[in-house]
């Protein structure tokens, strides 16, 4: 999409079109000839995997919308009708429901990859921020999609999440009423959630277009974090990365298919097969697994407004990450200290996710009562969430800003080709086993 184009129209039609609307040129430059660093590892295949996830969600979702009825009296039964009476409806719906989880698995790996290899640093700040926008849109879409079957978790999840806005001072109540389209979660809420759930994926697709545009201006980052210096460092996207991404996508599809065909309800909650009943609240309201870390942060704060601010802050902080990390070195391969903090960060996110699915007051180590600190036993999930949440924010606000100034990074390679050529697989026996330790 930028830089020199090597496209040469070969046929008359291509030449004719090229001076009027150079779409073939655009496609050729973006997905055929695009110079891509030759050292990208499998963590880089998740971009392609995500594009496929979005495509699957769009196609299955549009078909589901042909059969779904967005009305509180019919939604649940219409979903079951899809499962029973629509040809291959079970396949389409299970692909869509599990596809949401797959989408999030892939996006989390994609984000952790960006964090580890410093893909958010100059000149890729806009690329990173667009990614954060996509993530935010994905969360809104997934939340509203989960409401549509109008099961018990759908309804009560919608009540909990929309009520969060009620915590805002002065305008909170008005916003909540506006979101609901009434004075409770009811038919107008379901109607508008359906409408928005249909709209947002197309907005995601639009921002994905921008995301790819912003990727193709500076080009891919790579595991060394070192800029592309020469043609030696790159290979054309096709066939090198079409085949590598293609392989990774199909392997990902195998995992996806395992869920769809053999355990389609494992990632959902059984309560969502109970039709929504506003008068009966489920014993434990839990969001889908991909929201659990944020749910844990929300519940870690005793004050409702504080919890809401911190929960949204956990996402907001990612938007300013490019300016929080002071290190000039992109890849954590050459930042041993940062690497350690990064893995603790991944662990903190997993712990938060685990805590989000537990009751706050339950013991982390069963049967062991320690002492009450402020409002809860120290050996409780609420305190574990607090420690993990503290680390989550400290990683962005303290570790990355300070570490960049204080740490001594390892020497970086001259170019991508330098460490590539001395990769242990290509090096003679006895050479250093860890290429990241080499200058």
């Amino acid at each position: 999409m930028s830089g020199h184009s090597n496209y040469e129209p070969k046929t008359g039609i291509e030449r004719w079109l090229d001076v009027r609307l150079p779409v073939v040129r655009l496609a050729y430059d973006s997905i055929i000839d695009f110079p891509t660093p030759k050292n990208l590892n499998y963590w880089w295949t998740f971009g392609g995997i995500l594009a496929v996830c979005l495509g699957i969600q769009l196609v299955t979702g549009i078909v589901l919308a042909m059969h779904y009825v967005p009305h509180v009296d019919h939604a649940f039964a219409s979903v079951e009708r899809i499962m029973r009476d629509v040809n291959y409806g079970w396949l389409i719906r299970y692909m869509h429901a599990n596809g949401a989880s797959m989408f999030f698995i892939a996006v989390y790996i994609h984000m952790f990859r960006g964090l580890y290899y410093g893909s958010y640093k100059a000149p890729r700040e806009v690329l990173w921020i667009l990614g954060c926008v996509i993530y935010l849109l994905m969360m809104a879409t997934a939340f509203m999609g989960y409401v549509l079957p109008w099961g018990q978790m759908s309804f009560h999840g919608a009540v909990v999440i929309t009520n969060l806005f009620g915590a805002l001072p002065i305008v909170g109540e008005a916003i909540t009423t506006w979101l609901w389209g009434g004075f409770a979660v009811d038919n107008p809420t379901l109607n508008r959630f359906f409408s928005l759930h249909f709209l947002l994926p197309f907005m995601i697709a639009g921002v994905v277009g921008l995301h790819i545009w912003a990727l193709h201006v500076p080009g891919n980052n790579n595991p060394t974090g070192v800029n592309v210096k020469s043609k030696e460092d790159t290979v054309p996207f096709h066939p090198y990365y079409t085949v590598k991404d293609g392989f990774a996508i199909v392997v990902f599809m195998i995992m996806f298919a395992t869920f769809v065909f053999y355990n389609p309800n494992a990632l959902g909650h059984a309560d969502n097969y109970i039709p929504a009943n506003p008068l009966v609240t489920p014993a434990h309201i839990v969001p889908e697994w991909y929201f659990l870390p944020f749910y844990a942060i929300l519940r870690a704060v005793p004050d409702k407004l504080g919890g809401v601010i911190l929960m949204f802050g956990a996402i907001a902080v990612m938007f300013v990450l490019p300016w929080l990390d002071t290190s000039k070195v992109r890849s954590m391969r050459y930042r041993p200290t940062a690497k350690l903090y990064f893995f603790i960060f991944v662990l903190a996110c997993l712990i938060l996710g685990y805590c989000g699915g537990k009751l706050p007051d339950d013991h982390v180590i069963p049967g062991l009562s320690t002492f009450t600190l402020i409002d809860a036993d120290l050996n409780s999930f609420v305190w574990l969430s607090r420690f993990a949440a503290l680390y989550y924010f400290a990683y962005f606000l303290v570790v990355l800003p300070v570490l960049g100034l204080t740490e001594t990074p390892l020497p970086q390679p001259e170019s991508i080709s330098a460490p590539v050529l001395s990769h242990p697989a290509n090096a003679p026996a006895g050479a250093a086993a860890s290429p990241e330790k080499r200058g």
Partner: protein
Amino acid sequence: MLRKGIALAAFGLAILAAPAALAAGGAAPVKHVEFSFEGPFGKFDQAQLQRGYKVYREVCSACHSMNLMSFRNLGQKGGPFFDPKYPNPNDNPYVKSIAAEYQIKDIDSETGDVIERPGTSADRFPSPFPNEPAARASNGGAMPPDLSVMAKARHHGPQYIYSLLTGYQDPPAGLKVGVGQHYNPFMAGDVTASWSGPHDKVPPGGFIAMAPPLAAGQVTFDDGTKSTLENQAKDVAAFLTWASEPKMQERKAFGMAAMIYLLIFAGLLYVSYRKIWKNVAH
């Protein structure tokens, strides 16, 4: 170092012991029972589905609706009365005769009068009660839940149904059971408020308004299967699982083809990947 090791080991043990240390208020873990439809090659046992339908019809349906089920579903592919001779389940004589045994409320299209007519394959299973208040009034205030998707609406659905139906027992001494209630260790709930025994020994499970519905010999199976409580519970659990997931068998068969396709495709792509990248140091 040693101290650290011991602490770690203790922590590990505590984690392992977690499931054993049942917190108050939890239901007992479901009984282990195997079904023919489990696993990637699992198939419904048609004879079992027929027996299970009989249990549903003679016992459960007195109080429980199955609003999402139509009679035609019984004769569809994979269903209890599927007959390859009748690919269209609406033509299946067995299904037709089952439907015809029911009287369905309808409107006379000529006069507009409310009438009752014999059921057809296209009709839904009729509900035992005209509405929710009527259902509650007949059941001590409790609403018998619709069973259409019951096996999906509970964790370990089939095992849960089996455990609940076979799990009724006399309440342990110290547990006060209310009028019209029954103790069942597999029912979700929390009996702490009715427990006068030691605090750390609260019995698992909860109270259920449904009296033990099944007993040995209650339903006579036409195929000679012994009518024990366990057999009836297992068969009706299988039937309800089929009703919840009527396309399960089709799904697993489709999945096998999809898996084989994906594995071959992945293999071909990997070989292509190796070949294309052969001369690139990376």
